């Protein structure tokens, strides 16, 4: 199966993607991870204003089959959460990189993304 991985995003080992615009990072879950999880029923996100440190668990995503942690890919403060997708998680698969964004994080410092992958690297990793 082949999925879409937009070139303008950064990708984490743990299947989050990051869209960097100035000092705001928009974070979501890749199409591959969404497919692996199967039918998603619940997304738990941090609260607006929460401080996040890179690598910590900031929420989780629950499918019929399994529950997976979502990790903070950057240091920063939660600016906004996507309430619409939290209310209708089954729609996540339809547009993971658009309407399916999960949260926006305001960076406290320039993001350090040495650990992240390009679209091509991520695609090679997940074999899609």
């Amino acid at each position, binding site marked *: 199966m082949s999925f879409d991985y937009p070139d303008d995003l950064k990708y984490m080992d743990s299947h989050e993607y990051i869209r960097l615009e100035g000092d705001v990072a928009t974070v979501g879950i890749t199409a591959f991870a969404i497919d692996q999880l199967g039918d998603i029923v*619940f997304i*738990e996100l941090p609260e607006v204003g929460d401080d996040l440190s890179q690598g910590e668990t900031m929420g989780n995503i*629950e499918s*019929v089959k399994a529950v997976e942690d979502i990790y903070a890919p950057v240091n920063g403060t939660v600016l906004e959460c996507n309430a619409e997708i939290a209310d209708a998680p089954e729609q996540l698969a339809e547009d993971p990189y658009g309407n399916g964004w999960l949260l926006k994080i305001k960076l406290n410092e320039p993001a350090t993304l040495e650990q992240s992958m390009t679209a091509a690297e991520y695609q090679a990793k997940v074999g899609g």
Partner: protein
Amino acid sequence: MADSLKPTPLLEQHQQLNARMMGFGGWNMPVQYEGITTEHQSVRQTVGMFDISHMGKFLLQGNNLRQQLQPLVPSDLSQLEPGQAKYSVFLNEQAGIIDDLIFYFEGGTESGVETGKLIVNASTTAKDKAWLLKHVSAEAIGFEDVSDSHVLIAVQGPDAIATLQRFTPIALTTIRNYRHQSGTILEQPAWFARTGYTGEDGFEVMVDPETGKKLWQTLLDAGVTPCGLGARDTLRLEAAMALYGQDINDTTTPYEAGLGWLVNLDQGEFIGMDALKDQQQSGSQRKLVGLQMQGRHIARHDYPVVVNDQEVGIVTSGSFSPTLGKSIALAYVSTALAKSGTELMVLIRNKPQPAIVVKKPFYRRPKL
């Protein structure tokens, strides 16, 4: 990954459908094809099919077979009519459940030679075989293990019987619930049992591997949705049917598990009888209850159930119920907290989440 796992005769069929596979009870089994929820809804609304060839299948034949098996089960086998099936359990001396099973009684000759089948769980097939043959000789019950050589396909859902009927001359509607009969399908020998693990009407059909492959393809062409173990699990959970190794095991008794209805204490001696009598007198300390979560969190196997920060039980199975649109679970809780309407908490990733005890099953199929 699947090197040590046994394939069912239908492995190629699953691969052709791009099934996601996983190990289950030593077998390489399909978890899902299109998706668990879609498959689940097909079974509730139309018809789905499952490859359940992994189930343990024992053919039995012997003098007074039912009498020989009677000491091994708490249910009364003597009243079974030819063609009738009985859901029961093997118990240890402490009345812990060694396995749950269905005994399909076929009938007997005038001289008292009776035949039947035992269908048991995949992961417990070897354990059951050892337990059975420890108490009765293989010769006396004509024991034959056909677990690896027969295909079993479950066809389930409101349209299951009409669909299956197109391929067999047997009048399927004359086989009542929990009855079974031999016949043919696609002009090959087959055995039909009106049993299942989904809460819907339907049949489980046993055939040889070649017929199994043809039957799978025929049903697929007839529009039957292939369903994996994922949907099988959500369907059986809505119907509150126990899963061995999760909801019931060697340390849980039928009374605790809500299976008291299959126990008959007046039918003579059986293994576990004394322990069951004791528990009947003293009452069981815990009960398997249905929980409905107030939020969408899923309470999963082994999550603690708490009241005022005190652990009062443990979740054994949990999932999101596609039919109810709510998260549901089975859990053992202290008997005092087992009444419907009781408010409890399930500890999910260290946070208590509210749940309420509800009547089982979560789903009951509409009566026609």
